[in-house]
Structures are given as C-alpha cells and as structure tokens.
C-alpha cells in the first residue's frame, strides 16, 4: 500500500533527481555507500516507522505518561519501538565510524528520520534528542566523555536531553540561574531548576544524559557567562543516583508520547558522593556553553522544521485519500438531483485545499532536505571555500528551515481537518492529533518571534550582509536558469528576491534597531515564502522535460505556489518598507 506517512516517490525525486545525492558517494566519508544502501535504509526506515511507530501514535496520545511520585510510566509500545530503532542501528546512521556509526549522508539520514516523525512524533523525540546530544559531545566533548556517554547512546542504552529553559528563562537564555559550583576533583555540582525538558525522565533507557546550561559563580553576566555541563541521571563512574529529580510532568496539547518535565537539580533528594548537588562535568571551555549548545540547536532547528513538515505531509496524504473516498454533493453544473454524488476531490474548493497542502508540504520537504544537504557540504565539500559557503548559506536559512514548515505545515494540518469536514474534528481520524502535535513547532527551539529576530537582526546582517548576498546570488542563479515555459516564474522570483534585498537595506538604513526589528516576524514570513518559491522553481527545473502524473503534479503545485502564495509577500514587504510603527507605538493600556 502506498505509504500515508510520506511519499517515497517524492523523496526519490528530491534526493536523486534534484539534489543528486548519489554524488555524495564520491566523497571519502561516504565512499562505502551507494544508491543501493540509500534505498535499503530508506526501506528500513519506512518499514520500522510503519510497523513499530505509527500503530501506537494514537494510543500514546490518549494515554499520556503518568508519574506516581517515583516512576514515570509510558505505554509499553514506546519502549518496544525504541528498542527496534536502536537494534537496527538507525541512531548511529549519520555518525562517525569511530563510534560505531554508518556515515550515511545527513540528507539521507534526515529523509529516513522524517518517516518516524510522520509516524509518531512523540516516540521519535527520544532518538531525536539522543542523536543531537551525541553529535554535540562528538564535536565538543573529551574522548572520555565520548566513550562514557556517546557509545552507550549509539547502542541505544542511554538517551539524551537538552536542558536550556528554566521557569523564568525561556526565550531569554541570558537569564538562566542554574549554578555550577566547581569541586576540587575538577567536576561540578549543579543547583537549579530546568523547565520543559523533553524526555527528562522515563524508564526507557539505562541512563539519561542531560546537557545542561548553567553559570559558574563569578562568570560574566548574560550569555557570555553560560557554560555547558553533562549531567547523567546515574553517575556512570559510581553507579549512584545523581541529584536530578523530576518535580513533575507537564500536561501538553500534543507530543504526548514525549515526557515533558520540570527537573530539580541539587535539591538534596539524592546525595551522590555523600553530599547534595547534581554531579556535572564541564563540556569544552567554561563560558562557551551557548555556542556549543547551538551546535545541537542548529541541527535541532532543521529537525523541528522536518518534524513540522512530516506532520503536514502525513496529514496531506490522509486528507487526499479521504477526499477520493468521500462522496458528497454534485458538480456545480449538474442538474439531476438523483445523479450519484461525486467524491469531494471533484470540487474545485477541495482541490484548492489539497493543492495548498501539497505546495506547503512538498515545499517544506525540499527546504529541509536542501538544508540537510548543506550540512553535508559544510562537512565534506571538496574545497574549504565550498564548505564555508555552505556554512554561511545554511546559517542564513536555519531560522527559515525551522519556522516556515512550523507555520505552513501547521496550516496544512488545519486544511487537512477542513477537507475531512466534521469527521476531521473528531478523534476517529488522525488529522486533529497531527494539528495538536504540530502546534508545538512554532514554540520550541526558539519561538517564531525569536526566529524572526534571528533572521533580520543577525543572519542577514552578519559579516556585512554576506549571508543575504549569498542567498540572493543563489536564488538569482536559479531564476536565470528558468527559460521557456518557466521564464515567467524566473522573472517573478527574481523580482521578489531583489525586493527582499532592497527592503532589508531600507529597514537597516534607519540606524534604529527598534524600528528595523519591530516587524521581524513579518520579514521572516516574507523571506520564507521567497525561499520556498525558489525551491519550487528548482523542483520545476528538475522536472523539466519529464512526463507523467507525478511531474504534472509538481508543475501544477509549483505554479499554484507562485500564483496563490508568493504574491502575499508583496504587501508584507511594502509594510516593512514603510517602517510602520504601529506595533511600537501602541500603548500597553490600549491592548
């Protein structure tokens, strides 16, 4: 049966016909791979996701984790699925051979992981966090830390978390107050509270490896005084229970299969080594914690975009199937009331909702895969210059890769519900859960608003605006390749990209960051749409000269995006160019 998680045909088009990922096998890191291994691991991911993750998605949603004061209980299917995930070796798919990894290109590993996010985003969070955690320690940890924590994570024995947020410090990490007090033996003791920690407590693994942001007393104020620590639930060297305890579980709208926790560090509930305080070990140098954490967060941000895409994608496929099967109403022109009803897919408005979903989810998949491909280039492109360019472009695109799918694939889920009519609003069908699950994505890993500030306040101005210039050059190169039937789209794209550069200049010409950044979210959305239009044109170029329903579907969805979506950016960019002060000037008392 064709999968209702993701379209394998679309994945293959994007990976092989557009991104040409087979070329990556020429690079030494991936020399052991071939199209055959890529296909086999995609098969494996699709199968495990379908058989072991999708079936308990609803059950996990309906039976959220419980805490009896000592132990967190989850439905047993979660552990079973995660054991299979670990046994098949998927955790280490992209990692170095030196730790037992398979050195699969990130773009293929990302495609594989998307199947799990589509099947069961709650259960897939555990490996998601574990992989990110292991990658961070590989990059910045000591060889001992790699041996102690990464190897067991690769084997699926330990799981990982990322502990940044605190009750009083979410978006503003400068305000974290967790303290890390140095000890004579070189270790630290941590004291404080961490809020919202996903996978922070459970019985799914032997140990939980927390990566914790904290401040060493006497360090500079703000983000420059934040250090990163590895704090295991069980102290590996002694086997003692560390002084990290669950204060309580958060009860969420979605992602219910993932435990979400308030953790207390150093409250003396456990006394490893005979004293209170959570035993922690510094990662890298003191006060450089945030840049290290960004190693994990940048990958996690693309991963969040991927999760949003995957939820949108599966919702689209399910609503498409529903629309083909649900008879309702007759064609506008039909005169005979006794004629049989048509399936709702025959109605123009339903087709509009399906097309909108298609262009959001397939556009988002292209965006996520493109960014993963840049991650590969950043790591393994042949020349130093190519690697730097990939890094710069990826850095610029990251806030969009996180936010665009989070916004528009959520909208896709809303449309999937709409296509189902009243049935979509019930728990009989999957789409309402996808919507609830997906509603998290504009919030965590930096809210939508924070991503807007990151794009306009940092990314497009960094290094004298080189990131934006590179993005503009890259988009222009695509626009220039569009000729014949696609020439009009090339021209429309070029005009939009030029306008982004112009408006960015106008915003910063004021010299007043308050004015420039007042509508950063509008900027994020406008640039996001231009970027996705570019990736749609890329897809249409890859489909040029090819025939059949699949390629015709690409062409119509691409044109739909240019017709219905890209023009939205006109008024947005006009608003930005006008340096509108409404949001700055509105008095709090008026709201």
């Amino acid at each position, binding site marked *: *049966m*064709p999968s209702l998680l993701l379209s394998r045909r679309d994945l293959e088009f994007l990976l092989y016909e557009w991104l040409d990922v087979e070329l990556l096998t020429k690079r030494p890191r991936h020399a*052991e*791979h*071939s199209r*055959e*291994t890529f*296909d*086999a*691991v995609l*098969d*494996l991911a699709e*199968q*495990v996701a379908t058989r072991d993750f999708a079936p308990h998605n609803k059950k996990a949603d309906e039976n959220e984790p419980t805490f009896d004061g000592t132990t967190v209980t989850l439905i047993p299917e979660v552990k079973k699925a995660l054991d*299979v995930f670990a*046994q*098949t*070796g*998927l955790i*280490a*798919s992209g990692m170095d051979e030196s730790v037992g990894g*398979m050195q*699969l290109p990130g773009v293929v590993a990302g495609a594989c992981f998307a199947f799990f996010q589509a099947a069961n985003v709650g259960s897939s969070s555990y490996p998601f966090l574990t992989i990110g955690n292991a990658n961070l320690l590989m990059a910045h940890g000591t060889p001992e830390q790699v041996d102690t924590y990464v190897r067991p994570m690769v084997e699926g024995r330990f799981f990982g978390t990322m502990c940044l947020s605190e009750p009083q410090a979410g978006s503003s990490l400068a305000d974290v107050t967790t303290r890390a007090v140095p000890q004579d033996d070189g270790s630290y003791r941590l004291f404080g509270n961490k809020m919202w920690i996903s996978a922070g407590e459970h019985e799914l693994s032997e140990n939980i490896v927390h990566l914790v942001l904290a401040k060493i007393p006497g360090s500079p104020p703000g983000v420059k005084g934040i250090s990163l620590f590895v704090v295991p639930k069980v102290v590996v060297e002694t086997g003692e229970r560390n002084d990290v305890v669950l204060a309580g579980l958060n009860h969420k709208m979605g992602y219910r299969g993932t435990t979400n926790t308030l953790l207390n560090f150093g409250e003396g509930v456990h006394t490893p080594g005979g004293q209170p305080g959570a035993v922690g070990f510094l990662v890298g140098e003191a006060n450089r914690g945030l840049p290290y954490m960004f190693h994990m967060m940048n990958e996690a941000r693309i991963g969040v975009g991927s999760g949003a895409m995957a939820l949108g994608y599966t919702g689209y496929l399910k609503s498409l199937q529903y629309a083909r099967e649900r008879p309702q109403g007759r064609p506008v022109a039909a005169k005979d009331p006794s004629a049989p009803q048509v399936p709702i897919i025959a109605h123009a408005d339903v087709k509009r909702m399906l097309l909108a979903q298609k262009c959001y989810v397939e556009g988002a998949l292209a965006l996520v895969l493109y960014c993963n491909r840049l991650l590969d280039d950043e790591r393994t492109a042949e020349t130093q210059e190519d690697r730097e360019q990939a890094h710069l472009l990826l850095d610029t695109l990251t806030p969009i890769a996180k936010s665009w799918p989070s916004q528009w694939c959520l909208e896709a889920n809303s449309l999937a519900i709409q296509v189902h009519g009243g049935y979509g609003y019930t728990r009989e069908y999957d789409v309402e859960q996808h919507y609830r699950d997906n509603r998290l994505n504009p919030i965590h890993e930096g809210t939508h608003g924070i991503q807007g500030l990151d794009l306009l306040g940092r990314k497009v101005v960094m290094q004298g605006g080189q990131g934006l210039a590179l993005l503009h050059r890259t988009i222009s190169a695509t626009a220039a390749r569009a000729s014949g039937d696609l020439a009009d789209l090339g021209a429309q794209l070029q005009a939009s990209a030029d306008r982004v550069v112009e408006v960015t200049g106008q915003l910063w010409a004021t010299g007043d960051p308050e004015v420039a950044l007042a509508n950063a979210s509008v900027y994020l959305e406008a640039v996001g749409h231009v970027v996705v239009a570019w990736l749609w044109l890329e897809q249409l170029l890859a489909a040029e000269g090819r025939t059949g329903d699949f390629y015709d579907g690409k062409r119509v969805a691409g044109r739909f995006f240019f017709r219905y979506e890209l023009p939205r950016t006109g008024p947005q960019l006009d608003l930005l160019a006008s340096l509108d002060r409404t949001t700055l000037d509105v008095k709090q008392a008026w709201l």
Partner: protein
Amino acid sequence: MNIVVLVKQVPDTWAERKLDATDKTLDRASVDVVMNEIDEYAVEEALRIQADQGGEVTIVSMAPDRGVETIRKALSMGADKAVHLSDPALHGSDAVQTSYALAKVLGTLEYDLVIAGSEATDSRMAIMTPLLAERLGQPQLSGARKVTVDGGTVRIERQTDNGYDVVEASTPAIVSVVEKINEPRYPSFKGIMAAKKKPLTTLTLADAGIEADRVGLASAPSQVVEFSNKPPRQAGQIVKDEGDGGVKVAEYLASQKLV
C-alpha cells in the same frame, strides 16, 4: 548445518496485480516488488538455526535482474551468500519448469536443509516444495510452525486446522514454513552495508546446466489461455438487528465457513 533458503520476488501485496495482455504472464515491470512475505520467515528461521548450529545460509532466487534487490534484503538480514538464477529464457516458466530449474541450482550446492515459504503471494499455488522434494528425491516437511534440528534429524510441528502434527525426516530435507513460526528481524544498518560485500553468484541457464527447451513460456506444460478482470465488488449484505442481529451474523459467518 548448511541451509539454503529459497526466496521469491513478488509484486507488492497491495499493488494492483496484473497479467501482461500480450503473453498473459505476470506483469512485473509496472509494479513495486518485494520479497514474498513468508520468505522473510524462512530467512529468519534459517538464521536462527544457524545461530544455534553454525554453518552457512545461502539464498537462492530465480528472478529477473531486478531480483537482486530482494536477494540483498535477505543478505542484509544476515544470510552469508546468494545464488541468483537469471536468464531471459526463463520468462514465463510455470511451476513445474521452475522446480526443474531450481532443482538444478540446488544440485550445484551442498546443503542439509532447504527452507522456503509455504506459498508465494502472487501465484498462491503452494506447490514448489513438494515439486522440489519429488525431483530431488528428498523428504519434504511442509507447513512448519516450529523446526528443531538434532544431528541428522529435522523435526517440525506441522500446522493443521485443529492443532499440529509432529513430523520428522533425515537430512537433507526440504522444509516449508508458515507465518506462525517466528517474527522476522529487520535488516540492520550494519547488515545493509555488509550485504554489499557478500558473495552473489549469478547463473545463466548454461551455468546451471539447465536445458533451454525445458523452461520458458513456449514449452510450459500449463498455459494461461484466457483471463478477465475480477468483477467489481458486489454490494454487501446488510443484517438488520431486530434483537437477533448477533445470531444472524453468526449464522452468516457459519454459512461461509468462517467460524
């Protein structure tokens, strides 16, 4: 204990399966193909016996070139090597001819056990292991839901309608398995990488000593003369519950021999 597992590539169970209008053979080109599902259980069983007894597991498959995908899957589950019988002249061979060709290939191998799935989801004849046993003059243990090997003796539990029979034979023997027997493993990622390097021998008719006029559509003892598509599904029967709905449903199921 050296084991040969017979593996067949079939159209995906969910795909719309069609016969080619020109020569009335199975249309393999236009559909997704997969490993015949029960064959995964056969591979799994062979790997379990191997883990216990040692020896080698060899995959044998007769299939067009594309069959390599299915063979690799069996190798990535953990089998050691494979033999792929592939020759355009085999196209259109029926079950009797296929058993002849497979018996020839088996004749080139040394084995204690041949394990196969009890039937294939495309042809559903469930006749390959009896045909092979006959041709090779070796005992057949069919429909196994459990296999135990003890020295030169193989014992199975044969699934029956009401329970099971215990049947045994001396090796070499041909065993067919049913889905109850185990839970097939997934190929692991390491297995996928390793499968690329495992020995895979491709044989043509000549390599296997198969006589060309004994295989292929032209000389097939059974021929598809005519076929038509299944009529569209009939409307179902609605049972109205007038207090006796349960009884009526039970009667219906009994009349269809479903309970």
